[in-house]
């Protein structure tokens, strides 16, 4: 169990650093990095705070010292985040389609006015 918690600690620290570096290099916008930062902090907190992990494990019906709790929580958080990003991508795709249509229509008007001007 301790070794597993050390691994998840390392993973959460790496995730945290990756997110911070990405923000600094402007590879990810701050508003989209927040959920990753919260997830990494949450994972780190649960990995380092045994009573908190045991409390969560007992609340979801698993025995204390159950590593499964960590994976369940981590998996659930990532599923929610992926769903959130699917919504964001869908909005972006809709905006993108509307913009592409508008560009095509404006080009048509410009070409048409050029032909008649």
């Amino acid at each position, binding site marked *: 169990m301790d070794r597993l918690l050390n691994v998840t600690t390392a993973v959460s620290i790496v995730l945290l650093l990756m997110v911070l570096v990405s923000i600094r290099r402007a590879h990810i916008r701050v508003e989209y990095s927040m959920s990753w930062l919260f997830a990494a902090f949450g994972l780190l907190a649960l990995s380092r705070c045994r009573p908190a992990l045991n409390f969560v494990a007992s609340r979801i019906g698993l025995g204390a010292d159950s590593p499964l709790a960590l994976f369940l929580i981590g998996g659930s958080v990532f599923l929610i985040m992926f769903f959130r990003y699917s919504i964001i991508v869908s909005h972006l795709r809709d905006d993108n*389609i509307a913009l592409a249509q508008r560009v095509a229509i404006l080009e048509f008007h410009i070409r048409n006015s050029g032909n008649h001007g």
Partner: protein
Amino acid sequence: MKLPLGPGSLLVIIPAFNEEGAIAGVVRSVLRHVPDTPVLVIDDSSTDGTRAAARAAGAELLCLPHHLGLGGAVQAGYKLAFELGFEYVIRVDGDGQHNAADIPRILEALTTSGCEMIIGSRFVEGAGAPSSFARTLGIRFFRAVLRPILGKRVHDPTSGFVGVNRRALEVFSHSFPLEYPEIEALVVLQRRRFRFQEVPCKMYRRAAGRSSITGLKSFYYMAHVLLGVFMNVLKYEGRRRREPDAGAGG
């Protein structure tokens, strides 16, 4: 394109993606059957010579900056037609499956029936219907699904040979299914209590290229369209419960 437009103005739109082999023939055929009608080819970022072939055949071009798929391309045409003030728009596929000789029949039904949408159908009396077994099976399935939703039978729900009037054009320029649009578009119209009618049309096999819905994609198509149809129904039902007059005004 000559502007301003007169009353009863018609635009024929042809969405096309990599249809170099068929597009010129389709455009010429449309111009032969409805000579004074502008023909707009919506090029969905083709990588072959579709644009040049369409232009050489006498079509106007609406060039999308990147590939949007069939629904996005058709909606771009509807948006432009609505902005330019066209009264009627008839969509013809760019692969040569539709017979341009049927366009006057669709236009006549549009102008005289009072329906917002006219569907060129392979399966009503007097039509021609070369269709694969899988496609025929899919069409029968969607007929059964749509019957209770639309309140009447639609023989050819997957037909892309459709004409719309300005009321439907306004709706579609704001709300149009972007992937596999034909079936969902019927439900979008139904939500507004618009009417549609089918007229018999002869259809051919593709003149060139191949269909995008093959093999496993046909299962994806079925699931996608079913989900879209039921979501539209739920949206309509929810709206109708909130506002008793919803749907009548669009």
